[in-house]
C-alpha cells in the first residue's frame, strides 16, 4: 500500500463517493490483477471503479461484477478475461461457506464468434490446383487452425477458405480510407463546409456591393488509385491464394484498383476478380494465368507491367507488390524497374509474407535489389498484418 499511485487512487476516491478504505484497497488490488493478466487499466479507471462501488449494492455480487465490468472493460473481447479475474478475486474475499454464485457461471457465455475455433481446417478442395497442397499432410498446420490463437495473428497458411467475411470487412475499411482522403484544397460547391469570403465579396461587386449570393467551398476528396501486383509463383503458394482473396474483396469494394498476377509472366486479372464469387474468379484465373505456381521472374514481370500498363501509375497511385522476393532473373533488371516504379508512383509498398517469420532478413537477391526503391516493406502473412497495412495505404 505504499506505491504512490495506489495512495493517490484512494485519496481521490474518499473525497468523492463514500466507499470504505478496505473496499478501495480491494479495488486497487483487483485492478492490479487485471493489469497482470494483460488488460489495460488506467489509474483514472481504477478511481472510477472505486467510485462505482459507492453507488451499488455491495452485497449483490452480480451487480458489483456488472458495474465494475462496465467501468473497467472497454471492449467485448476482454469480457471473459475480466470475468475470470473477478471470479478468483471475489472467491478470495468471500467468507467460507458463502453460496457459489450461479449468475457468474451462466453469464460467461462465449459470444457468437463465427471465425473462432470451430472453423474447419484448411480446406483445399475448392482451390484451383488439386494435389499440390503443401499442408494437407502436415499435422502441425492442421492443429494450428484449431488452437486458440486469435484470428488476426494466425498465419494465412492456417486459414480456412470460408473466412471471406473477414476479408470483406477489411477490404471495406481500406476502401473507405482510400476513398475519403480529403485534400487541403478548397473548391466551390453549393452546400460547402464553409463560406468562401473572398469569392463572396467578389460576387458582390457584380451586384453593386450588395451581397446577394453566398459562395461556399468544400475540401476536395483526394483520389487515390491502387495497383496491386501479386506473385503467384510456387514459393508463394501458401500465401498468394489468400492475398488474392483479399485482393478479390478489395476489387469488389473499391473501384480504383487494378490487379495483376505474375510468376514468370504478367497477367492482368482485374476483370476476372470483379463481380464474381471468389471460387468462380479462381476458375477464371486458372485459365488466364498460365504459369500459376511456377518459378518467378519478378524483374521481367514488373518490366512487362511498366511497359504495357505503365500509364496506370502516377503520383496518385499506390503500387502494392506482394512477393517473397525469390527471383530467378537478373537482379539488375529488378533494380532498374523498381527505380522506375518508385519514380512514377506516389508510393511503393512491398508486402513480404516471409517477414512474419521471427528470423527474417531481406537477403534474397531480389529483395536486396528492390529494397532501396521501396517506400515501405511490410509483412503480409496474416490478417493482422493486412490490417496494419491499411494505415499505410494513403498518400
Amino acid at each position, binding site marked *: 500500500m505504499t506505491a504512490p499511485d495506489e495512495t493517490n487512487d484512494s485519496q481521490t476516491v474518499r473525497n468523492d463517493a463514500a466507499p470504505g478504505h478496505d473496499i478501495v484497497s480491494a479495488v486497487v488490488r483487483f485492478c492490479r490483477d487485471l493489469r497482470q493478466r494483460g488488460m489495460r487499466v488506467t489509474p483514472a479507471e481504477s478511481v472510477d471503479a472505486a467510485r462505482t462501488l459507492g*453507488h451499488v*449494492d455491495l452485497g*449483490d455480487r452480480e*451487480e458489483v461484477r*456488472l458495474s465494475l*465490468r*462496465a467501468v473497467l472493460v472497454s471492449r467485448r473481447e476482454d469480457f471473459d478475461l475480466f470475468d475470470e479475474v473477478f471470479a478468483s478475486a471475489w472467491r478470495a474475499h468471500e467468507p467460507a461457506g458463502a453460496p457459489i454464485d450461479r449468475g457468474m457461471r451462466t453469464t460467461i457465455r462465449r459470444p457468437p464468434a463465427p471465425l473462432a475455433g470451430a472453423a474447419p481446417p484448411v480446406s483445399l478442395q475448392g482451390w484451383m490446383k488439386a494435389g499440390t497442397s503443401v499442408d494437407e499432410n502436415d499435422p502441425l498446420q492442421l492443429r494450428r487452425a484449431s488452437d486458440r490463437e486469435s484470428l488476426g495473428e494466425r498465419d494465412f497458411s492456417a486459414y480456412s477458405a470460408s473466412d471471406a467475411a473477414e476479408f470483406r470487412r477489411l477490404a471495406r475499411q481500406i476502401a473507405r480510407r482510400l476513398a*475519403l482522403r480529403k485534400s487541403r484544397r478548397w473548391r466551390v460547391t453549393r452546400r460547402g463546409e464553409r463560406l468562401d469570403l473572398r469569392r463572396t465579396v467578389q460576387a458582390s461587386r457584380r451586384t453593386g456591393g450588395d451581397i446577394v449570393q453566398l459562395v461556399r467551398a468544400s475540401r476536395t476528396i483526394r483520389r487515390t488509385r491502387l495497383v496491386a501486383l501479386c506473385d503467384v509463383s510456387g514459393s508463394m503458394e501458401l500465401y498468394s491464394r489468400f492475398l488474392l482473396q483479399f485482393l478479390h474483396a478489395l476489387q469488389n469494394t473499391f473501384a480504383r484498383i487494378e490487379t495483376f498476377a505474375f510468376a514468370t509472366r504478367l497477367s492482368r486479372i482485374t476483370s476476372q476478380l470483379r463481380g464474381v464469387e471468389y471460387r468462380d474468379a479462381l476458375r477464371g484465373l486458372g485459365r488466364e494465368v498460365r504459369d500459376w505456381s511456377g518459378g518467378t521472374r519478378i524483374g521481367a514481370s514488373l518490366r512487362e507491367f511498366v511497359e504495357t500498363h505503365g500509364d496506370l501509375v502516377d503520383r496518385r497511385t499506390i503500387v502494392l507488390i506482394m512477393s517473397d522476393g525469390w527471383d530467378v532473373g537478373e537482379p539488375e533488371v529488378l533494380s532498374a524497374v523498381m527505380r522506375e516504379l518508385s519514380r512514377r508512383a506516389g508510393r511503393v509498398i512491398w508486402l513480404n509474407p516471409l517477414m512474419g517469420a521471427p528470423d527474417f532478413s531481406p537477403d534474397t537477391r531480389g529483395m536486396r535489389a528492390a529494397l532501396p526503391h521501396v517506400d515501405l516493406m511490410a509483412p503480409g502473412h496474416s490478417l493482422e498484418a493486412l490490417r496494419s497495412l491499411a494505415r499505410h495505404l494513403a498518400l
Partner: protein
Amino acid sequence: MNEDIRRIQDVMEREAYITDRQIATSVFLAIALGKPLLVEGHPGVGKTEIAKVLAGAQSADLIRLQCYEGLDAATALYEWNYPRQLLHIKLEEQSGASLAQKEASLFSEAFLLKRPLLAAITHKGTPPVLLIDEVDRSDEEFEAFLLEILSDFQVTIPELGTLKAETRPVVVLTSNRTRELSEALRRRCLYLWIDYPSFEKELRIVRSKVPGLSEQLAREVTALLQSLRRMRLAKLPGVAETLDWAAALVALHVDKLDETVVRETMGCFLKDDADFKVLDRELGEGHLAALTSVAI
C-alpha cells in the same frame, strides 16, 4: 440489488424496452458517474433505442447526432447564420448605433445555428440525453474532436467566448464496429455490449411489441430466429427483423408456420441472397420443425 437500478429497469420496461441487469446497471452508472455510455453490439439489437427510452423515461430532451463519413466539426457543433447576418447588416445600415454595438448584435446567440453538440451544451433545464449514433462511421479526426467535447462539455466560439454546459448531458454513443474506435475514446466511456437476446428475452420483446401474435406462433418465430443466428449466414438477423416478421405474420393473418409461409415471408428477416438459399435448402430438407423448436 440497488434500488435505483431496479427503478431504471422498471422505467425502461414501462417504456416497452425489455431490458436486463447488464443494461440497467450500465445506464444507472452512466447517470450516477456522469460518464458517457458506449454501446456496442450487432445491428438490430436495440442500441439506439436505449438513448430514446432513457430520454423518455426521464422526460428529458433527446438530441441526436447521426455520424457519417466526412462529418465535420461545423456540422456537429455550430455555424453562423450568414444570410441572416447579412440581412441584419442591411437593416442596421440606417440606424444610429455605433459600430461596436452593431458588431455586438451581429455575433450574438440569435445568429448562431446550433448543431447537436452545441445544442446539448447550451441546453437549459433537465439535462438532455445526447445520442451520438454510429460513431464508428465518422472519421478519426472527428473522433478526436468528440473526445475533447466529451471531456469538459465546453466550446469556445471566438466571437462569443466560452460556453460551458450548466448541466452535463447524459451521453450515449453507439457503434456497429465497422471500425475500431480509438483507445482514448473507449477509456473515456462506460462500456456496454449488447448481445443477441436469449430466447426468453426475445420472446418477451416479441410479446410486448407485437401483441397480436398468438403465444404458439411467437415461440416458433423466436425459436426460428434464434436458430438462424447459430447458422453461418452472411447477415444475421437482429431483433428488429424478428419484430418485422412477427408484425408481417399478424398482418397476413397467419396462424401456423409452414414451409410455404416461411418461404414467402423470409424477406422480412433475411437480407442477403445467399442466406435465402441457405434457409431454402434447410426447408427443402424438412428441417422447419427442428428450427422452430425451442433450443435448450
